[in-house]
């Protein structure tokens, strides 16, 4: 079982979370052509090593987070809120919550 340090709630079992997808994907604008959407929706690297993933703390704070995880060891290197505004607000806060 993975243990994911949620930036809002602290370290929790991965069974509280649901996996989203590849966090490195930049979704195109809605009006972008089909080719750009094909790239974003279907094309995925099969990474042997560290990759960025989105997870949602579904049975917790329901926040979407970006997890930097090593696919070989399952080691989690970093976790931040997916929402950039929240991420920078949290980074500036003096008392980050993720010390479990």
């Amino acid at each position, binding site marked *: 079982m*993975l243990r994911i340090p949620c930036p809002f709630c602290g370290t929790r079992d991965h069974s509280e979370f649901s996996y989203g997808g590849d966090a490195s994907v930049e979704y195109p604008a809605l009006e972008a052509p089909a080719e750009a959407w094909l790239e974003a929706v279907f094309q995925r690297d099969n990474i042997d090593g560290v990759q960025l993933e989105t997870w*949602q703390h579904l049975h917790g704070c329901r926040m979407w987070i970006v997890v930097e995880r090593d696919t070989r*060891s399952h080691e989690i290197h970093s976790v931040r809120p997916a929402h950039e505004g*929240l991420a920078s607000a949290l980074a500036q806060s003096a008392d980050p919550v993720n010390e479990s």
Partner: protein
Amino acid sequence: MTATRLAKGGYIDRDQLLNFTWDGRTLHGHAGDSLASALLASNQQVLGRSFKYHRPRGLMSAGVEESGALVTIGRGDRRDANVRATTQELYAGLVAQGQNAWPSVRFDAGSISNLFGRFLAAGFYYKTFMGLPPFEWGSGTGMWMRYEKIIRKAAGMGEASRSPDPDHYEHAHGYCDVLVVGSGPAGRGAALTAAKAGLDVILVEQEAILGGDTLAQPQAADNLADQIKALKGAGVRIMARTTAFGLYDGGVAGLLERVTDHLAEPPMWMPRQRCWTLRARYTVLATGALERHVAFGNNDRPGIMTANAARIYLNRFAVRAGENIVIATNNDSAYAGAFELAQAGASVQILDARKSIPDAIRAQAADAHAVLRTGAAPLMAHGAKGITALDIAGQHAANWREAGKTDCDLLLVSGGWSPVVNLLSHRGVKPVWDADLACFVPGQTNEPLSMAGSAAGIWNDNACLLSGQAAAERAVAHLGGAQGSSAAPAPGGWQGAITPLYEVKVPGRQLKSFVDPQHDVTTEDIRLAHREGYVSVEHLKRYTTLGMATDQGKMGNIIGLALMAEALGKEIPQVGTTTFRPPYTPVSLGALKGRNVGNHFRALRRTPLHEWNLEHGGTMTMAGLWHRPWYFAHSGETIGDAYVREAQTVRRTVGLCDVTSLGKIAIQGPDSTELLNRIYSNPFAKLPIGKARYGIMLRDDGFVMDDGTTWHLRESEYFMTTTTAHAGKVMAFLEELLQTRWTDLRVHVTSVSEQWAGVAVAGPKSRQVLESCVENPAAVSDTNLPFMGVLETTLKGKVPCRIARISFSGERAFEVYLPSDFCPDIMDALWESARSMNGCLYGLEALGALRIEKGHVTGAELDGRVTIEDAGLGRMASDKKPYIGSALRKRPDMARDNRPRLVGIFPRDRREIFNAGSLLCAPDHIEGYGEGWITAVTHSPALGHWIGLGFISGGHSQWHDKAVVCADPIRKGNTAVEIVSPHMFDPDGERMYG
């Protein structure tokens, strides 16, 4: 073998006599005994029959690695097969039986297969029973099917009870700073050191009492009891009878706690076993080492066990396992036991495979008055149901040759020790071969985890203690405490080096030498596998089944590897080892499922109207996790009668239906309209306040995700409803969009599914029902609340509610949402009014009939493979705005004309019935996937015959004038049908809009 219970010593209570039954005979032991020690003390030698050859088997060990004494415990529903007698604690009234034998393990008719042993070698099943036609006469899969039943019976293990498990089990969760596995010297040292540093420590021990290998040694003035007291005093949480069976990511360990397996009469309130998920910040594995056997002729005979096992029986259980004992060893560890057994009155001979041994060890043998032969090893055991004599081999140059025979009633073997690296292996860390110690030692890991004691290849008690302390200091430092000063002792610790010894054989002698006794894998099987071309250790394992029995190779793996290495002319590390996977020892399925059985198999969601529905005659059905009313039968009605009546009543007067399970989402904030306009495929930018709109959401890939209505309540507030099935998915998707893609949108989404209960009021008289229940009846007039109108108002009694005039049934209908807490009272009022108009309550079955008549889609149709055009709703999708899925829904394949499209289906002969799940085929081509499928069927009360919804390639325009067959080969057979528009009833919606 003549075993004797000693008059004193051991960790047993001689005052407590426990009677138990073995194969129908009443025997007795003492509190503190294992079943194995009690059987041994009662001189029961043959305890099992082997898997393939039905050879007699007795105790081979005194612990979890036991391969011989597998027995069945209990009777009736409470029967546990393949229990190791060595790990089962004795209790009063225990019932144990030998298995894989008829009539009993002592006289087993099946042992005749021993005589045909040469036909049962490695790969026997494949070779004998699997062939290729036409050469499969007497073999081949056809024959295999026939033989399999007989073979399974002959080559079997214990038999499980076929009735439901009467016991209950629990899941539990735990946290600690340091988890210490094993309570030998290393584990105790680690736990005490870590606890004294202020850490929260859990110490798990698979045995009933703490001590580990210390229990195998003579008691030293209550030293162990003092140490355990110190552990408790330091705050160590001790879990005995608990096995750490698996180690997982993130410091998570799976523990199995055996709560009542040792009790004669378990109290009802206690779970039999508890499966723990334990999260530890640091883990110390002091899991010890297991002593190995050596392969020689008849090395599986009862009366042959590991040297340390005899020591455990002697010192822990006060049973001297034999009188005339031969100890065969290749290392120092067996000598202490030789002395202790001699002290207990046995005569001892020692065969040491080593040519030279240190003087101190030689002196130990002299102290035991033991006859010591160096360069000697066991060659073949004699005796049918127990060893009576032993042929000895002597070393001559690099080979063995016969060197005499000696009588004995007990043969103790020490072929070296294998550290228990299983749990580390679960973490993907490969063990490393240590040629000096002739064993695999733990590999390196970066995880917060240390191996300590003999699990790390350290053989000396004191060094084990130190290594435990050093491991604890690493834990303390890792968790932010002081850096420790102890250095971990190096592996090893014997005075003389071990001489590797895996097999003893002499030229020209046929021997039956077992490598994996539990699966009857012999040395010849390994060599045969090699001759037949198996070189990889993974293939060897699967071909010979080496290490695949319940002990998972604890006994025999290393010997098998060594023999394979020899056959290949390689060293053991080049052959490699197989990966140990969880569980370390067997875990019952009951413990894994815990309380999640029966009604607790999955979560159950009840609506606030649940009791109300039951009180009013509702029969419930499952819809996802929800319990929803299925139908409300009057007395004497079948389900078919009930739903037809309910649907007819809705079309004639009015009906009420609990629709609370629909997903409800509050969408609030200045950019709410923009969000809705982006996620729905149809326009939402201009939806006026006080209006609802039916919307269809697509996924990014352009397929339909969900549908529902969204109500515009106020300038920047909407109320969205989703289908029951996709409520969670839609909510998570909205959150994902707002948090990851559209972070600039000022919108808040909140699930309010639990806060609002929903009731559909449907039928020509629905407005009258509402009028009688709202405080201001004028508010629900046709003018004030037209089709798709939305109203926030109060019901009588000042209960706030939300009403929209929307229809799933195709009738004039309203959805009324009420605060959950007020629901039953309001429902009383609505029902009183509806009943006065000859209305009814209706359930899911009638709801389905009404919507199928109208061709309205639900989850059965929107199965994730359907485009908006396939569902016949393409004209709703906007071309003037971009939205989720708008780019990819235009892909060529999704615009194909002959995609399966939603259609209605009538039986050609209107009296016929057909089934959902059937395939739609052209009459001349009834095979394969056909041209489409049927998603839903119902008897249509409005049309008077059965109708269905489904998809067929090209849709209505392609097939409306063609013959179509509804193919249902395994149920009803073929039915001629015709394809009609999905809008089978009131296609112009006059009833709904009017």
